[in-house]
């Protein structure tokens, strides 16, 4: 069993805590996972950048001691594209919410994956916009109750992992905050992957999604994730109808397409 990296404390802005997230909110579990992965991979705070979007998860940068960037809503990956071009040796983690990455930032996500920019996108998917009061996002399951779908979400769910995989990401995986060991493994693999990688993490928002959908508080939501997130193969064997009741978790893609910057530099120097 691995220990906790000695550097763990160095990544945290302790003076900024307690954070503003509600009791049992999953964002903190994912942020801690990112920190542990950086520590285990021996990436010191000044060689790491946490880029976030807007919303509850967007505040993550207020609690860390590495480089921090918080852009405008949905644009995180576009900003990070420029940062990655200027600082190729920097480890860039783009930590975004489901609304941020899937709705307003959906276009940037597709193209960051397609360009294969050397970034690790971590999506904290809590099925709603927490900061603004629990409205549904594209990643919210169909029929869910949210503050803007009181009688159930009419739109279907968006599988952001499949989209990123289709677009060309080098690494795509999905898990939940209940499955923390898997989460840590995926985060480490994603960060170690050159090119675009994405880890989607289903995470509780007990304040809105848990309450509206009568799933309950944070421990109850984690139990729910334990029951409903099935390994990818098992999920794939389900009928279409059964699939609606479950989520999948696992690794969807792992490959080594050349990343944008390397390819660009090679082609350009061939031209000279």
């Amino acid at each position, binding site marked *: *069993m691995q220990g*906790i990296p000695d550097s763990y*404390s160095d990544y*945290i802005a*302790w003076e900024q*805590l*307690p*954070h503003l*997230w*509600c*009791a*049992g*909110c*999953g*964002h*903190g*579990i994912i942020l*801690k*996972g990112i920190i*542990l992965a950086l520590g285990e991979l021996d990436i010191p705070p000044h060689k790491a950048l946490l880029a976030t979007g807007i919303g509850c998860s967007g505040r993550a940068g207020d*609690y860390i001691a590495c480089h921090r960037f918080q852009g405008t809503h949905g644009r995180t990956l576009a900003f990070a594209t420029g940062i990655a071009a200027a600082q190729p040796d920097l480890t860039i983690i783009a930590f975004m919410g489901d609304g941020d990455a899937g709705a307003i930032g959906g276009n940037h996500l597709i193209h960051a994956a397609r360009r294969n920019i050397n970034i690790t996108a971590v999506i904290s998917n809590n099925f709603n916009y927490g900061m603004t009061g629990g409205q549904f996002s594209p990643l919210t399951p169909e029929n869910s109750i949210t503050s803007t779908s009181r009688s159930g979400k009419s739109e279907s769910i968006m599988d952001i992992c499949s989209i990123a995989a289709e677009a060309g990401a080098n690494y795509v995986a999905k898990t939940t*905050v209940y499955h*923390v*060991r898997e989460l*840590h493994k995926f985060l480490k693999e994603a960060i170690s992957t050159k090119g675009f990688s994405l880890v989607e993490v289903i995470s509780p928002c*007990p304040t809105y999604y848990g309450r509206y959908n009568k799933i309950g*508080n*944070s*421990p109850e939501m*984690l*139990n729910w994730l334990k029951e409903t997130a099935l390994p990818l193969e098992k999920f794939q064997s389900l009928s279409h109808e059964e699939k609606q009741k479950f989520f999948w978790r696992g690794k969807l893609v792992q490959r080594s397409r050349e990343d944008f910057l390397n390819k660009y530099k090679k082609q350009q120097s061939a031209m000279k």
Partner: protein
Amino acid sequence: MENKQYPFYIDPKLCKKCGLCIAFCPTKVYITGEDDLPKIEHPEKCISCKMCFYRCPDFAIRLKPEVA
């Protein structure tokens, strides 16, 4: 091998009493204590799995101050 760092120390200033550590400790080391704060009731049962540490969203579960 027994590791003296575990179980952890709970920082009452950071804990938001979400109950995740209590609910998911495999050996039930924690109970709900005063003011709903988790209380380490059975330190001897701790198997150092660190699940409580990993899942605490509030950075409230820390290595014991004297060790850290």
